[in-house]
């Protein structure tokens, strides 16, 4: 079945990407550690060493690699070649929105005028304040929210702000007894962990048969103890929560707040806004929806938008207009009246926020709406080209296929051999052997055809082949059990082994 769909030319092998990732081997090992190239011990203090501090205030020595710039340039270039990024090929990691990161945004974030210290006087950094103000404004419009804070440095930090704001709001209204946060079974793990970090009891909500919130179960879970319901929409199956208006009413009727997890916002740009659906508070994942680079795990940024009633509780400070001259508006920082305080030492991941602003300013209304339209088209097209069953429909920007009798984790490993990044696997658990796939808008039809060919080639392969994969990557299958059983978390522990 592989690859014969699409344009029907049947030359499936031509559609597949085969590639070998760079792999350096030296003395039977891959690229050596810096510490294996050199370790130099520098003594500090002692007799006539010229140290400006007395010995009792200093350490004895420091032992680290001492290497030349050319050696380091090669080391890090080699390391980079042993990494698969979006610029290497398709990266359909579900719920992560791995879209192309426009190059020019790096240039604007690197402007020397962006390099300012957070303790500068407000009048001397009007440019920074203006950019933050304009980004607050953009995000408010996109989410349908009345007020926005840019401080949270990641999505989970944004969730934490939402939960702390909810707590402060209830406390302010004399309802501090509310001690439960409801989270759908299929939600992102961060939702549960964030609610727990905020001191809440987590009430887990099962899905109904069609993969959405079960209204009866929700009715049963809601009570006067409900502080908030955290919801992703579309949910992790890519399905829109059609009953969202009713859900919002139910939550509001018991005095709870409705929280929107922005992880899947790339499905909705220009077509629906959380604020219009009845959500009271939401976070935006700018590293997902607004194309800032994921940087091997971060930094991201997780701004939070709220409705008017919650604005007084947002973190301090925020930015607002402050009159100014005829020709130029001026901006100032202010603390919301009942602020929860801070969730970051300063104002979050500034350099990331610049990139997000630039992306939104580049795309504008039409570009943003088109991004979501193409993201949803791409997910639907890709799903139509693969043989794996997709049990829940109609999905939007992502779909969850089932690997069926195959092990989804093994399927993923084997897909690496076809030069593509695999989907998120084994989650959400409602789909057996889940392959959670989000191609984003940046893939062309040709790339999607190649991606489909990779899925289909792997679907036709037997278990031993899958279990032996991958073999074209920089490293072969890595032993996870051994890594966890005897943790070796630094080069110092490797030295101990050698001794």
């Amino acid at each position, binding site marked *: 079945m592989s690859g014969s769909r699409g344009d029907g030319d049947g030359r499936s092998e031509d559609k597949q990407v085969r590639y070998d990732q760079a792999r350096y081997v030296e003395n039977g090992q891959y690229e050596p550690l810096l510490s294996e190239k050199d370790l130099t011990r520098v003594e500090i203090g002692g007799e006539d060493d010229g140290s400006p501090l007395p010995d009792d205030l200093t350490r004895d020595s420091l032992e680290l690699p001492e290497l030349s710039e050319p050696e380091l340039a090669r080391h890090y*270039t080699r390391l980079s070649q042993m990494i698969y990024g979006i610029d290497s090929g398709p990266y359909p990691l579900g719920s992560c929105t791995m879209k192309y990161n426009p190059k020019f945004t790096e240039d604007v974030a690197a402007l020397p005028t962006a390099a300012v210290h957070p303790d500068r006087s407000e009048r001397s950094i009007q440019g920074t304040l203006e950019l933050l103000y304009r980004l607050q404004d953009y995000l408010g419009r996109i989410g349908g929210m009345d007020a926005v804070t840019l401080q949270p440095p990641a999505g989970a930090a944004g969730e934490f702000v939402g939960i702390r704001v909810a707590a402060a709001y209830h406390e302010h209204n004399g309802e501090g007894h509310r001690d439960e946060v409801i989270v759908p079974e299929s939600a992102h793990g961060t939702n549960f962990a964030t609610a727990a970090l905020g001191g809440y009891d987590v009430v887990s909500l099962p899905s109904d048969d069609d993969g959405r919130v079960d209204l009866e179960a929700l009715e049963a879970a809601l009570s006067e103890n409900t502080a908030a319901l955290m919801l992703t929409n579309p949910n992790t199956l890519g399905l829109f929560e059609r009953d969202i208006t009713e859900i919002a009413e139910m939550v509001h009727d018991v005095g709870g707040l409705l929280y929107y997890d922005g992880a899947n916002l790339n499905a909705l740009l220009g077509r629906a806004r959380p604020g219009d659906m009845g959500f009271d508070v939401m976070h935006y994942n700018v590293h997902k929806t607004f194309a800032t680079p994921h940087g091997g795990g971060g930094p991201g940024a997780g701004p939070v938008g709220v409705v008017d009633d919650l604005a007084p509780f947002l973190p301090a400070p925020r930015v607002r207009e402050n009159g100014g001259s005829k020709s130029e508006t001026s901006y100032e920082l202010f603390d919301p009246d009942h602020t929860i305080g801070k969730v970051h*030492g300063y104002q979050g991941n500034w350099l990331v926020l610049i990139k997000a602003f630039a992306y939104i300013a580049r795309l504008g209304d039409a570009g943003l709406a088109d991004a979501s339209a193409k993201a949803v088209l791409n997910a639907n097209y890709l799903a139509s080209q693969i043989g794996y069953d997709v049990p829940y429909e109609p999905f939007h920007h992502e779909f969850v296929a089932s690997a069926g009798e195959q092990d989804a984790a093994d399927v993923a490993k084997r897909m690496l051999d076809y030069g593509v990044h695999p989907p998120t696997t084994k989650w959400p658990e409602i789909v057996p052997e889940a392959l959670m796939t989000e191609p984003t808008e940046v893939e062309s039809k040709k790339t999607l055809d190649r991606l489909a060919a990779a899925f289909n080639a792997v679907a036709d392969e037997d278990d031993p082949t899958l279990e032996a994969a991958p073999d074209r990557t920089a490293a072969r299958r890595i032993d996870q059990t051994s*890594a966890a059983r005897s943790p070796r978390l630094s080069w110092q522990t490797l030295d101990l082994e050698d001794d």
Partner: protein
Amino acid sequence: MHGSHATGSPYAPHTDEERSQMLDAVGAETEADLFDIPEAVQFDGEFDIDARSERETRRLVRSILGRNDDLTELLGRGHYGYYIPSLVDHLADRSEFLTSYTQYQPEVSQGFLQALFEYQSLLVELTGLEIANCSMYDAATALGEAATLAERVRDTSGHRVLVPDRLLEGRRSTLENYVAGTDLVVEAYPTDDGNVDLAALEEATDEEAVMLYAENPTVRGTIEENLEAVGDLAVANEALFVLGSDPIALSVLQRPADVGADVVVGDASVLGLPTSYGMGLGLFATSEDYLRQVPGRLVGASEDSTDRRAYTLTLQTREQHIRRERATSNICTNQAWVALRTAMHAASLGPNGMVDLAERGVTRAEDLAERLDDLVGVKAPVHDRHHFREFVVRVDQPAPAIASDLEKRGFAVHVVGEHEIQVCVAGVSDARIDSFVTTFREVAR
């Protein structure tokens, strides 16, 4: 034509022909047919955001940020502007580093994992503690995570977290938010001439204390002299000793493990990031006793099927995507790329360069303090201590007026009291420091 910008995203490559083929394949006339959004919540309005060309967008951002004054910043207090070697920018900007994500597929992510493993090893050497994670957001959030770790690992019934009275407001407030969902209570203990007031801390510490926090150097730039005694106090009361520092300071100051620190937090982006309006990199290192309680991601060494050493994220059962509400933290997206930059900057300096940079922070601060102290109406440093890269200055005139006059002449300093300013030498050239002294002489008299 690809991605006609008049109608769509410039980064969606579909031609009209491809688009119709794809729509045909899924049985839809337009993309709109693919959306399952009830009419009541459909948005058919506009954001009123104009699309721009790349060039126009760059011009817009340049023009907005152009409103920032070009000042020489003698600013520190937790965020520093050290010189970043070009090597760091050029190599960290390689798109494989920039455009990959969390290493869920380690076989295609060896390079990033190895760089993070090397970062962890750097911190292990600097702190003397066995475990370092591969990043928190910043110093403030790392401090918050240390407190929740203390709550999990301490058997005592206590709930007191003791922090210095001069703790930065952003750190104090973040810490308060992190412990809001626990029984922990944050309390301040006094400092004396910049450093820990040991007698007062002894007085304040009892078996109800679960965590003692101190910083070295302190927020006032002084170097702590009593860290071992703080460590002993923590042991005697079965409290966790959490020490705040950074990789440059740790290159020469007392090794945390040698003074009994159980956890080290701080901002590691002093290496790797220029001034970035407070964006940071949370350093988090701890004893192997608390391995299973560490927040955040850990990279470990293992073997692949050819028996060669390979790296992977490990001990993930601590993390939110597996353990959910019982996870050690809610962190997912972290600061990995900043950690990469920090590791690159450290490697570029080497141990000689790091020690040299740290020692120059001591001598240059000392020199500048001496020169300012010579001026009429100025006393520097205020504290009779050794200093690291920054110090507090007493001025006879009101400090805000001095700072404002300095700003008009191109220099930014901290106002930390009615008659106190704070200055930092990190990243400031000798020529600019000379010019600063001259200017200071003019404004202080």
